[in-house]
């Protein structure tokens, strides 16, 4: 009876092929994103999905290319005048969506806004900035408090996005409800949890490379349902497909998948001195952490859980990064050495340890693989699957022994390492402190030569792999599925979908 009712209803509402939820103009690209974005204000924004939307709304002073080189966007060129002064020549005739011009004063306004607006999440990223000097309408200089080479890379993300000063002053704290930037698309409407719609901006500085009329971002949390929508033709692109679904996409003749490098990593954070609970053998003795690390075969994790799709690493940057130190290779699994280290540390086996990990299926599976491998060396691993926000709090408070957690990654290696292992840094949940490592980290910030910095990062990784505040496990891949009608996709490691250059066949 029920299937008949449903069929009758479907027939009564019969649509040509599969209907989509909204009526859109031709050349509308529908992108399924993994969550609803937060406030659409580059100064306040915190979420990754928010960055997906900004990729069409807000251009940045500089961007990254596929090889992580920093390339001009709103700035025509940049140069370091000295180790503390960065000069930008702005592109002429760039307009914001409200028709006002992007000039040096606008850049100064935006940097000041990042530093001073209540609730700014950019404050920390550009904390090294002392002040901005406007030399002429198209030239600005950013003067830093001290030499800080990673500063430029910060401007390839939200800190480098320029909003219209006129609109920002008029809207005040509500700017995120109607953002006005200088990107290829302008904000049209937002229905929370349903869609964010942006339309082509006719006065865009690079309008010749914009082939779409509209982009609709639809938040669909579950990746299986996101993929179903793509298969049913309700979406043109679905971001962050899960590795087990890659085969489904490949088997569908109407779909294709882009698999490309990722900036982040996944790893085990060891609590060394965080929190007030009794200190375990794992916390007290680096040899116990080394034994644990030696019991784990990274390649086996990647093979079992991700069909070999990801790459094992022993440093916080992926192999394609210019900061990757090739001399730092993941150590092989060595149970005999692990047992010897445990004996040397005077630990009685089996040693019970607890791994806290997120509740997603793949992370639980990693926990189980580690549990089984570490058991051979004498570890009795307990798995504590924890909802992500609770996990974050437990990790910040030091209420954990080992935590399996990833990092989405930044273009400059500094963003993947400094805040995690420098003494007293905000993301150093291990509370690891090694003055020699701190000194090397400071040195990397003062150096501007990539080769010199790479060598320094190599030294840091070597030391960190001995002290083990974090055991880096693997670097993921970006997995973005799309209809075969979509062409012109540029795979950039930050995983964002750059709508400029995208084409949609009818």
């Amino acid at each position, binding site marked *: 009876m029920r299937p008949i009712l449903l069929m009758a209803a479907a027939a009564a509402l019969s649509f040509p092929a599969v209907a989509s939820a909204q009526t859109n103009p031709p050349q509308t690209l529908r992108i399924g994103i993994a969550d609803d974005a937060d406030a659409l204000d580059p100064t306040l924004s915190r979420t990754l999905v928010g960055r997906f939307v900004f990729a069409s709304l807000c251009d940045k002073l500089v961007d990254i290319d596929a090889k992580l080189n920093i390339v001009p966007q709103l700035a025509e060129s940049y140069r370091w005048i000295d180790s503390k002064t960065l000069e930008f020549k702005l592109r002429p005739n760039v307009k914001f969506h409200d028709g006002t011009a992007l000039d040096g004063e606008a850049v100064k306004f935006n940097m000041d806004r990042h530093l001073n607006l209540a609730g700014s999440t950019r404050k920390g990223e550009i904390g090294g900035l002392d002040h901005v000097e406007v030399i002429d309408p198209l030239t600005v200089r950013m003067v830093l408090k001290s030499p800080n080479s990673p500063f430029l890379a910060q401007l390839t993300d939200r800190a480098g996005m320029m909003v219209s000063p006129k609109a920002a002053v008029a809207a005040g704290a509500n700017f995120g409800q109607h953002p006005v930037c200088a990107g290829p698309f302008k904000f049209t409407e937002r229905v929370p949890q349903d869609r964010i719609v942006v339309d082509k901006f006719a006065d865009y500085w690079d309008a010749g490379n914009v082939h779409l009329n509209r982009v609709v971002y639809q938040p669909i949390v579950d990746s299986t*349902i996101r993929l179903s929508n793509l298969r049913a033709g309700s979406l043109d692109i679905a971001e962050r497909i899960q590795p087990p679904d890659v085969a489904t996409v490949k088997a569908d003749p109407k779909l294709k998948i882009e698999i490309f490098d990722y900036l982040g990593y996944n790893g085990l954070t060891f609590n060394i001195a965080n929190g007030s609970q009794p200190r375990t053998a794992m916390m007290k003795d680096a040899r116990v952490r080394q034994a644990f690390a030696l019991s784990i075969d990274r390649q086996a994790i990647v093979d079992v859980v991700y069909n070999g799709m990801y790459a094992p690493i022993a440093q916080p940057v992926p192999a394609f990064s210019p900061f990757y130190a090739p001399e730092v290779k993941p150590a092989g699994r060595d149970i005999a050495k692990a047992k010897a280290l445990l004996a040397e540390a005077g630990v009685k086996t089996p040693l019970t340890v607890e791994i806290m990990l997120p509740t997603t299926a793949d992370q639980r599976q990693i926990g189980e693989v580690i549990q089984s491998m570490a058991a051979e060396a004498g570890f009795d691993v307990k798995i504590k699957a924890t909802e992500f926000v609770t996990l974050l709090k437990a990790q910040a408070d030091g209420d954990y022994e080992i935590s399996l957690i990833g990092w989405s990654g930044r273009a400059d290696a500094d963003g993947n390492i400094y805040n995690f292992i420098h003494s007293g840094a905000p993301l150093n949940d291990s509370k690891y402190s090694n003055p020699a490592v701190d000194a090397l980290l400071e040195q990397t910030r003062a150096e501007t030569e990539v080769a010199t910095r790479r060598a320094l990062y190599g030294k840091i990784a070597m030391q960190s792999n001995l002290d083990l505040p974090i055991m880096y496990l693997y670097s993921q891949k970006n997995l973005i599925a799309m209809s075969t009608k979509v062409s012109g996709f540029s795979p950039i490691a930050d995983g964002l979908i750059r709508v400029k250059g995208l084409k949609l066949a009818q």
Partner: protein
Amino acid sequence: MRSNLGVRIAQILPTLVLVSIMVFCLQQLMPGDPALVLAGEERDPAVLAQIRTELWLDRPLAMQYFHWIGNVLQGDLGFSWRIREPVLNLVIAKLPVTAQLGLMAFVIAICIGVPMGIVSAVKKNSFWDYAANGIGLAGLSTPNFWLGIMLILVVSVQLGWLPPSGYVPLTEDWRQSLATTIMPAFVLGNALAAVLMRHTRSAMLTALEQDYVRTARAKGLLEIRVVLRHALRNALVPVVTLGALELGTLLSGAVLTEQVFSIPGFGKLIVDAVFNRDYPVVQGVVLVTATVYISLNLIADIAYVFLNPRLRNA
């Protein structure tokens, strides 16, 4: 009856105050720190401190509660910490979506459940009775989440009949609106249909054995008239009570269904808010839902009186 009704209405206010205190306290028990969620990946200590001050998270719990409830009494439900929109706007935008979904599910449930219950009672111990019971059991046992995904895969992906997700308001395009909501409404109404079927069946079985039914038959009335006019009308009283209660439950059932079909209603709003520790949204939505639930019960009480004249003098 009038005084009874007065008492019922007078009970609403203290109930809502209790609900507000409970929802406020329960979410304080939720692990996790909203400031950590709001501060972004970098977790800058200065940003964290500023967020705690701005959102009153650094004040005593009682002060936080009175600050919130004071604003609520003035019609201000606060603003979403995550997307920085007033909660009242979100509630106003989402309520019609879930109400439409809930009502459609309710209609579907009644259309399936009540006739099946009647047939099953009238044809007791026959093939039809067993078949209706079997379908009812299947409906009760099928998880919404699974049924939703299966329908998307079959009806949308394989057959291409209906859109797999999204929502269009009735006022914008009624056909598209029905197309986007018929599957989730079916999923949501499925379990309720089974419940209604079982209750209608048992109430009808009781009613069919009553003296007035025998009298009606003895008068030589047509069987269909006996069943529908005499037995069903009396059997409907408990079914209406249940229906009203379940209509409230539909709001909570919508949580999973809206998530599966990406319907931007109350359910999706509250799930996202809980996962992001967006307290003002959770509080606002629960308070409004409680008000709706209590109002529906009141309406059910009034509906009894119309269905059963004996209650008019109670």
